[in-house]
């Protein structure tokens, strides 16, 4: 099982990195109203059970991968095929 974790700054949290990216995109001529920069973490797990894998990755997010004060996370699971 592979898991991809998307970590994003929560809505309302100032994201200076996203603002800088937005400014640069505008300079390139792209009309962009907002940009937010997060983080992608790809994990390879030895679990076969989706439910267990999801619960495990959720614990990883709560304990380390995201800081719940400022970040939200989204877990995507892909079974090895």
């Amino acid at each position, binding site marked *: 099982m592979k898991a991809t974790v998307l970590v994003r700054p929560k809505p309302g*949290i*100032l994201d*200076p*990195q996203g603002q*800088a990216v937005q400014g640069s995109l505008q300079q390139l001529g792209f009309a962009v109203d907002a940009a937010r920069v997060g983080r992608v973490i790809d994990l390879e797990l030895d679990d076969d059970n989706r439910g267990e894998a999801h619960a495990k990755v959720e614990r990883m997010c709560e304990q*380390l*991968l995201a*800081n719940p*004060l*400022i970040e939200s996370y989204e877990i995507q699971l892909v079974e090895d095929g």
Partner: protein
Amino acid sequence: MSRRVPKPRIAVVTFPGSNDDKDAALALAQLGAEVVPVWHADEALPDVGAVVLPGGFSYGDYLRAGALARFAPVMNSVRAFAAEGGLVLGICNGFQILCEAGLLPGVLRPNRSLTFVCRDTRLTVERTDTPFTSRCRPAQPLTIPVKHGEGCYFADAELLAELEASDQVVLRYEGESPNGSVARIAGVVNGDGNVLGLMPHPEHAVDPLTGSTDGALVLGSLVDAALRAATEPASV
């Protein structure tokens, strides 16, 4: 005739990537402490009156500043030490570690300006009844340098109101905050008052050679408190 004055023992923890540990040790020693260096992989803390987590870039600041250092073996002992009322001071990266470890409320985010700031800042001492500010006068302005890329203290509205109501903001930047931190917060203490984190570097402001000596008021307060902790039996 010489009277033997006991020296308070203060641990300075070095993580991989710490770079202000030597300066912190030097400053504390100048202020009369016996500094005990502690390596991050040590499980146990030596018998000390206070612990200092110094500045730097522990574990390369990977993931989030301080996020990985909190899992260092020594941090279990630091957590237990703090839970028993032990004095813990986190400077810069040490502050980030204490927040990530949940020993202090809030979190430190990249500076609003996205630039690394390295300059003297003016601070106001909001409380002098802590073990970290007892040598200061109420509302005393201090000049102490900052040098960080991620010093923007963040607490949501609810937490901020809680911190203000319980007087946990010990140090505030005067004028505009150098990093965009909420309520110009430069240093916060935990609810029990024995754990302080601050972004400015008191260890870089102890010698007239480098300008201000106001940092000695903060570290000197800690030395005093560590001495008291060593000589007075814990009142439990």
